[in-house]
Each structure stands twice: as C-alpha cells, then as structure tokens.
C-alpha cells in the first residue's frame, strides 16, 4: 500500500468534488435545454412533451401560449341561489366566498367555472361549498343572511365585444338583470330533489 500524505488525500477529495460538480453542471444544462425545448414544442402545438413528461412537470412548461385566439365575447361567470322560503332563484354574489382577486376574472370562482364548468363532480362540489358557506357564514352576497338556500344555478355571461370605433362604456359589473337572456348560458343547477331535501332539512332543523 502506498503511503499517502494528508495533502494528497485532500487533493484527491477536491478532485472528486470537481468531477461531481462537472457532472452536476452537465445535468443542469441537460434539464435547462429540455425545459426550453418543451416550452418551444408546446408553442408549436406538439403534444409530445405532455405525453412524455409526468403531468405535474409538463404543467410547468406550458407557459408560452398566451392569448392565441380572438375573443368573440367578454365572459363573466355568475350564480343564482334557490331561496327555500320563496321557492325562487335570486342572484347571488359569490365574491364574499372567493376573496382572492374578487373583482376580476382571476377570481377562483371564475377560474373554477372556466376550467371545470363541464365537470359534474366539480360543479357539485362548488354547489355544496356555496350553499354551506351561505348557510353557515353568510357574507354580503346579496341574499338576506336569515334566508336559507337550497342550491345554486351557475352560468356564464357572454357580453358582446363592441365594434372598433363605436362608443361604449368601460367594463363594469352589473346585476344579472342588466343582461338579456340571450347573453346568459346556464351550465349547472342543483337538482330539484337535492334542493327540496336541503330546504326540508333546514326547515326541520329550525323547527
């Protein structure tokens, strides 16, 4: 066995570290190039990255496709609540129950409707969440806190985009009654049986 001085061992350790550093740098470069390639391919409409990569990783590469299509209407999402005592639908302001960015379309209610309006499981969960929040911790949602609600009707508003050069008002949130029926499209309403059950349960509970 060769005799080894402390300096030689230290030199060898440093050399090994340098080898690992170099490998680390190469690995980082490969990851960086792969990320850039995935971003470019996603923009080019190639679905390979999202097929190859695990979805949580592919998610972080989908950053480039912004505003690719012309908007044909301004979309807003609204809710109506089923008032148990009056047996009627009344507009409900969901913003107290979705306090993040309440006044624009980055609001979580709008986003839930934007992504999941066709998904029944999510719509049912949204229905339960809104009803429970109004009944348990009523906020300033436009409905008397004493009124119980049995369900919700969730819809989109498709507000036409004004023609270029025409005179129009700046965007503002108006009550539902401001918009004609043709501009509303309902995506979900609580099934009647569920509304009846909830309202009956609440009345029994109060009794």
């Amino acid at each position, binding site marked *: 066995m060769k005799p080894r001085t402390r300096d030689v061992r230290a030199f060898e350790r440093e050399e090994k570290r340098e080898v690992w550093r170099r490998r680390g740098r190469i690995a*980082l470069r490969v990851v960086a190039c792969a990320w850039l390639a995935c971003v470019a391919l996603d923009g080019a409409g190639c679905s390979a990255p999202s097929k190859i990569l695990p979805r949580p990783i592919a998610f972080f590469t989908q950053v480039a496709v912004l505003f690719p299509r012309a908007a044909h209407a301004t979309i807003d999402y609204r809710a109506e609540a089923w008032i148990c005592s009056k047996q009627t639908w009344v507009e409900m302001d969901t913003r107290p129950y979705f306090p993040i960015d309440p006044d624009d379309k980055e609001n979580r209610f709008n986003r839930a409707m934007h992504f999941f309006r066709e998904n029944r499981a999510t719509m049912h969960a949204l229905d339960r969440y809104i009803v429970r929040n109004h009944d348990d911790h009523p906020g300033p949602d436009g409905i008397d806190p004493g009124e119980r609600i049995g369900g919700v009707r969730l819809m989109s508003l498709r507000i036409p985009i004004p023609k270029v050069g025409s005179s129009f008002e700046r965007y503002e949130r108006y009550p539902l009654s401001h918009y004609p029926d043709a501009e509303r499209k309902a995506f979900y309403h609580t099934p009647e049986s569920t509304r009846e059950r909830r309202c009956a349960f609440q009345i029994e509970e109060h009794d």
Partner: protein
Amino acid sequence: MTFGARIARWLETPVPLARLALVRIVLPLVVLGFMSARLAHASHWIGDAGFRVPDLGDHWAQPLYVPALPAWAAWTVAVAMIASGLLTSVGLKTRASALVFAATLVFCALSDRLAAFSVSKLSPTLILAVAAGPAERVLSVDAWLHKRRTGKKWKSERPCGSIRFLQLVPLTIYMASGIAKARADWLHEPLVLYSQIHGSYQTWIAYSLARAIPSWLWTTLQGTVLVFESTAPITFAIRKTRPYALVFGLGMHAMIALMFGPVVWFSLLMMTVLAAGWMPDRFFALMTPAARDRRGDLSDTTPRRGPARRSRRATSP
C-alpha cells in the same frame, strides 16, 4: 467554427454576475407582489377554508391533486414563501433561500390550479436558475459577509450557465408564443389584440385606447407583435438589431402592464428577465463598481471577431 464550438464558447465566456443579481433581487419581489392577494387569504388559497376542486383523476386542468392544508399549515407555507423570497432578494443564505422559495412556489402552483397563472408556472424555474448560479456573488448580504470574513471580494464576472439560461428563456417564450399565435387566429383575424382588451382586465388606458385607435392600427400593432415574437431569437442574436428588439420587448410588456390590470406582474417578470439578460454590459458595470474600475468598461459578453470590435463604442450592443 462549428455550431457546437460556438455554443461552447458562448457558454464559457465570462459574463457580469450582476445580471443574475438583478434577477435575484427583483424577481422574488415581483413574484411576492403577484402572490400578495393569495398570501393575504392563505387559508382560502391552499388551506381548507376555501373551495377545493375534488380529485378528478386525469382531468386536463388538474395536473396533480393536492389535498387542502389545515389553516395553520397554509399560513406556515405562506410565511415560508414570504421569508424565503425576501431572503433571496437581499441575498442572505441565497442558495438555500432560493431553493425553499422555489419549493413553496411549486407547491402552491400545483396545490391550487385555480389561482395558478403564467407567473406561478414560470417563477419556480427562474428561481431555480437563480439557485443554481452564483447569484450571491454580487450585491448581496452574502457577498458583504464574505468580504468581512475574508477581506476579499468574489469575482464579479465569470462564465455562468444560469445567466445564459435566463437569456434564452424570454426568446424561447416569445418564439413559442409567436408560433402559437400564428397557428391560431393572429394571421387571419385582424382584431385579435383589440378583442382581448375588454372585460375585467380592462384599465382606463386600455379603455381609452380602445375608443381612440382605428382598426387598421390595431391590426398593424398585432402584426408587429407577431413579427417581434416569432423572430425574437434572430433579432436578439444579431448585435445590430438587439437594442431595437430589447426596447420593443420592454415597451410591449410596459403596454401590457398598463392595459391589463392584473397582468402587470407577468409583465414585470418578463421585463426583469429581459433586462437582466439583454441590457448592455455597461449598465451592469454601473451596478458593480469593482468590475468597472478593473476593466474601465466591461466588454460585451458576446465573443467578437477582429480588433475593431474591441473599441468601447463597438462593445455596446
């Protein structure tokens, strides 16, 4: 010289670390600004007080189901995000704090798809680039402590893969965005840009411009943006067109910030990366006086051919 050799030389050319420092200082603040509305309601955002999308299995809009956190854990994540973001910005325990910051950003982006936007998806990658590079070497508390401890300053220039990556990020995004736009409506719908400035994002400036600008000008602007984005890798690569491309890019993001209220954070993020990557070296020499004193003026990071280009005038991209 082969293409591979050019790339290798480009990667090995020393660059002012102040470029990375600029991203390290500004980006966490921009990201925290974007997150501030969410952080203020952490229990609604990633906690169990707010609405949660149920586990949908393989729904395209839910990359991963993450259950809601109890309120105390949600607030802990929020505090960790703020603290690590601020520590990254001032450059204290830079690498560790940047890694923690990136981890909190990844968690929050996956935990709540509803409040995740381009900034949420892009920022973890950019912060990881900061963590991977020597971002603490200039303009940081770490650099100050190092100087106090050893009496020596770290070099303010060296080859840096992180900076090269940050230079390529906006160009890749622009090019991909340009291709996506051209494949969708931007080549055959003349008023895509105009159609986007209505709705809840609309600011007073957007409203005023929507009423004042004639349709042909909207179409011209739309075409200009499309050309800029699609050709960004070329216009930024060519030294002569680079300053114009940089000014156009910064101007475009400034206009987006002014016209689309909540998109201001995305614009600031892109402007930070664009400025850090492509501003002339002279600007960064002002940020690190030692480098300026040593070399008089920093040369451009792009390799040059011939002695004529070594003149001070020629070095400014």
